[in-house]
């Protein structure tokens, strides 16, 4: 055993190891951020993973009387609690998806219930589709194009490319503050 450990290394292995340890560490690579990527209507959006609580199957939402306005506020059961459900699309000023978009090519329902949380409490919305959590290097963030919907600009901090989709990265706290303000 010890004889094997004491064997001299061949030149290639030595070179590879030397190159590996001598490489300058790219510190920027460590500045990553992760978002939950989802779709509302035609828009792909991302929210910092720190601001979401859970993602689940869509559940029956009970609407609130006299609150049938744009937000369509209602209640949805989440783990034994009744959580406020609202239309995030309306809040962000995104055109609602046609109902057929709830089913994808294979006819499987893609809609998911997304629950956000902050110190003020939890709030849920139904996304037309959830892609999953995406981790990216903050260096990949791109500035917002001037073509972005005006209403979205105030909630979006940057764009990031996830696969084929440019994703608008939402400012979590700003969205939650707008939610609280819109509910009252």
């Amino acid at each position: 055993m010890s004889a094997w450990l004491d064997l001299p290394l061949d030149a290639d292995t030595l070179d590879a190891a030397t190159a590996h340890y001598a490489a300058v560490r790219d510190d920027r690579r460590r500045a990553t951020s992760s978002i939950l990527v989802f779709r509302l209507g035609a828009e792909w959006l991302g929210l910092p993973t720190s601001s979401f609580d859970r993602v689940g199957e869509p559940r029956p939402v009970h609407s609130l009387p006299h609150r049938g306005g744009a937000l369509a506020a209602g209640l949805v059961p989440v783990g034994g609690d009744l959580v406020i459900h609202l239309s995030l699309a309306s809040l962000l000023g995104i055109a609602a998806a046609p109902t057929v978009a709830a089913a994808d090519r294979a006819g499987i329902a893609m809609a998911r219930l997304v629950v956000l949380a902050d110190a003020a409490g939890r709030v849920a919305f139904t996304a037309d589709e959830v892609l999953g959590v995406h981790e990216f290097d903050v260096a990949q963030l791109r500035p917002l194009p001037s073509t972005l919907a005006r209403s979205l600009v105030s909630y979006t901090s940057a764009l990031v490319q996830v696969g084929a989709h440019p994703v608008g990265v939402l400012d979590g706290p700003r969205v939650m503050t707008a939610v609280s303000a819109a509910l009252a």
Partner: protein
Amino acid sequence: MSPEVSLAELFRTEAREQIAKLSDGLVSLEEPTTPAALEELMRAAHSLKGAARIVGHEQMVRVAHELEECFVAAQAGTIRLTAGRVDMLLLGVDALTSLAAIEPGGEVDEAVANMADEVVAALRETARGAGSVARASGRVPLQRAVASAGRLVPHASQGGTDNTERLLTLAGEALVASRGVLAQVGSDAAVRRAERELERCIGEMRSVFAGLLVSEEAQRAIAAVELASAASTQRRRERVVAIEGAGQRVTDVITQLYERVLDARMRPFGEGVAGMPRMLRDTARELGRDARLVLVGEGTPVDREVLRRIEAPLGHLVRNAVDHGIEAPAIRAAQGRPSSGTVRLEARHGGGRLLVTVEDDGRGIDLEAVRARVVRRGLTDAHAAADMSEQELFHFLFLPGFTLRDEVTAISGRGVGLDAVQTAVREIGGDVRVSAPATGGTRFELQLPLTLSVVWALVVEIGGESFAIPLARVHRVLRVDRAEIASVEGREHFTLDDRPVGLVLGHQLLGMPARDQEDAAAVVVVGEPEWALGIVVDRLIGEQELVLRGLDARLGKVQDVGGAALLADGSPTLVLDVDDLQRTATMLAAGGRLDAVGPGASGRAAARKRVLVVDDSLTVRELERKMIEGQGYAVDVAVDGMDAWNALRAGAYDLVVTDVDMPRMDGIELVTRIKGDATLRAVPVMIVSYKDRDEDRRRGLDAGADFYLTKGSFYDETMLRAIEDFIGMPT
């Protein structure tokens, strides 16, 4: 958790216990004091001193020490524990309460430290036998110092509350989920159908084969299929039975868990009224009376929330009993009654309710004084008052501003008493009654729900969603044929027990979408006999026991809704607030916005295009309404911009016609709001105004109005043509 932290917690618990002993012991101290009572007080002070020393709480050690010295002096007979000295000792206990909240060894506020020094000095004098009367005036500033020190000290939060709440919701959800499993197991109709179909197919095969000459091999094969099918059915049934049994056991356990969690919310009654003996004593001392509190049924379990909500009303009734009931000791003695009065506070369960009584042995309510006051206040005339029974007169005691006192004292006489008690008690679904026991005195009885967290409710469907109405507020449930519905001035009603009951469409009341109505409307009659309201619902679902949850505070008060709950099938529902519904119905009727329920009403109203007419002038409003309705549109009216905004948010409109100058919210702001709202933006708005200058017109259009019309021209066809241009024909 570090040992220091748990030590501090242990100390706080012990301090609470010993302070309660000191407080209770002092309040119930009788003269002459018994050695046993003093012994107990000394022990409490001594234990507290020892505990405070262990955690290094210097101020508490000193105050507890001086208290102990006082008790020692009393035991030795050097001082007598007069009422004045007991006052001082209680002040020392208050100081201990404030100090106990300070983290041992932590930073002590200067004001708090000074207060402790002064209390120590005053107690030292008391132990030396300082006269209580001479010190009484000096005690007031000290009292203030102790009270304000209490406010300076951060109070430890009531831990565990949220956890119990959370446990309750989780246990509730688990219960619902486990019942769901059982329901799934029970509903295997589809599987059974498939099995029967398989059996039928095999039978058919057999009969087909019977007419043919088939090989023995085929015969055997079909027999094998038959056998396998039967075995599969049998095995499945066994599995179902096994799963059902397991499911039932799970449900049983969860039901027990749920009930235990519900129980955990119950607290002994005594815990909620622990401060009452002291409060009674302070009130009695202040008014120069002598009174004791007798507590009965301290162990009666009461829902924590109920306990919290009745604390203030009970405190009020107890203070009232001393102030209005118990006479001065001299008067009582002169009548040959014990100079010390008794206030009896009792809690017990009865008839599924919690009954709390507050009874005093004082002078009782002077019926003639009430009668005179009722007449003087102009509530009725002398003749009618003379005929009123005791119970009828007692009702007046609960009127706001009603008092038998001419002078206002710090305790009562302002007439803000009993009505506040009644309001607080009614808010939690209880009631309060007053009576005069044959033995004299006054007796208040509070009937309260055992718990606020569970409610029996009638679940109905309105506008395609479920709503629950507390059974306590449901007067009657019935089907009303549309032919039986009469209409008076646009308000519909039907007759129930010879009384007209107003009818309102549930979906309209709640601003929900309309559903097709059947010929016989399902009507839930809610409220009191004096103002019964018939709510037309889409469907009755049934009675259910619901665990109430509050709505998220961020929503604020949602009109007509009292709370939320999960139904047995796990779907959410809203519990309606019946008093709110009554108000909403009145407002709807006043605004002329009630839709018809009666014959021929269904369908037509829903299909017509809806126009909202907004004007503060009744004449203009009605003129416009008649013109537009004359064209076949459905028209609702609103009296100002605010009213219109609420109507718009609650219902769907195709067009808004509005005036500009209106109170509360003018037309310009209304237009601005509509055009700034994502869903309402598309609704065309037409301004009809007397203002015909160009700048007025521009102001309206700049705000986003789609059309501007001056009032001079709306009598002609212009307005109707414009409406048709915007939204087309009425249907």
